[in-house]
């Protein structure tokens, strides 16, 4: 449809694409679609060998996970961090008495630092106040 102000080409239209070209292009396109590489998921789903391979790989990973020692087993230092109860200095133990238990380990130290700082601040405030009163 002409949107021009004139109708110069009235009665004429561009040469259309031939039916032979349509047939050729459509068949080429369909061939191209069929020969496109499939995705990994499709190949896994359709190939028995790849399915067996996938199951074997998963089995091996599970077995290795069960069989190999854990990092804590291989590193006694790490095991101690996690498992051995910590022994605090008596002064620190007195400050942290409300937060310690027999099962407190070295790995808990990071959590205790802010608690310890808070306790120290409280003791210092109390000491200052009692000095001023006396």
């Amino acid at each position, binding site marked *: *449809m*002409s*949107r*021009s*102000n*004139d*109708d*110069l*080409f*009235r*009665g*004429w*239209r*561009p*040469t*259309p*694409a031939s039916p032979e*070209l*349509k047939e*050729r*292009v*459509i068949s*080429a*396109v*369909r061939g*191209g*679609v069929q020969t*496109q590489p499939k995705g990994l998921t499709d190949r896994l789903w359709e190939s028995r060998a790849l399915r067996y391979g996938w199951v074997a790989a998963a089995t091996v990973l599970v077995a290795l996970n069960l069989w190999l020692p854990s990092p804590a087993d291989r590193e006694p230092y790490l095991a101690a961090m996690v498992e051995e109860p910590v022994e605090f200095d008596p002064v620190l133990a007195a400050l942290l008495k409300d937060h310690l238990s027999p099962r407190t380990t070295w790995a808990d130290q990071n959590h205790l630092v802010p608690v310890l700082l808070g306790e120290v601040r409280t003791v210092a405030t109390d000491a200052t106040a009692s000095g001023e009163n006396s």
Partner: protein
Amino acid sequence: MSAWRSPPHHLSHDKNGDSIGHSDVDTIGDTLAAVEFAVDSQPSSRAEVDEELKAALRQLSEGKGDAVERVWNLIADDLYGLALWRTGSTADAEDAVQEVFLRLSSRPAKFGGVRNPRAYLLRMTHNAAADAARRRESPMPESVPTLVAIENVDARIDGRRASDLLLELPAAQREVVFLRHFAALSFREIGEVCHIPTFTAASRHRLAINRLKELLGVES
């Protein structure tokens, strides 16, 4: 044209580009042609064709391979026409259209969300045709008919002569004329398709039409 075609003269546009319904339809033949056009040219507007094209491309992007044929039916004639007018060679035009459709089918997901699929596909064709013309080493081996007659519509010009004369115009001007008159693009869209500013598109169109009228002896 592919899914829609030029209306009879009296349903065309006036000097300002506005649609007009002539009161001076003076022959039964003209009236019948008008009715035939109205009945036979569904979908009748570019917007409808573009919506169908969008839907077909969406289907293609969803993996429905049959949508390729639907896309072909909606736009292939426009793509082929552009390629033919751009290259002036049937073989190059066919290669360009085939390349566009192969690209379309190789990465269909890319085309599912295109906002203006007509302009997008024409732009791809423009690029493919330009590459084909660049690759061609020898001059055009044939004189190809770029226009064919529409039955039952009086022609204003000798189309066969116009077809030959069109090939004498620069390829850049030819394709602008095609995109404006037959693919129904705005000058802004033509600029996007041909990678040129809107003003340049309008200017090329004016030069080409004036030159054609001059060669054909048609009064403005």
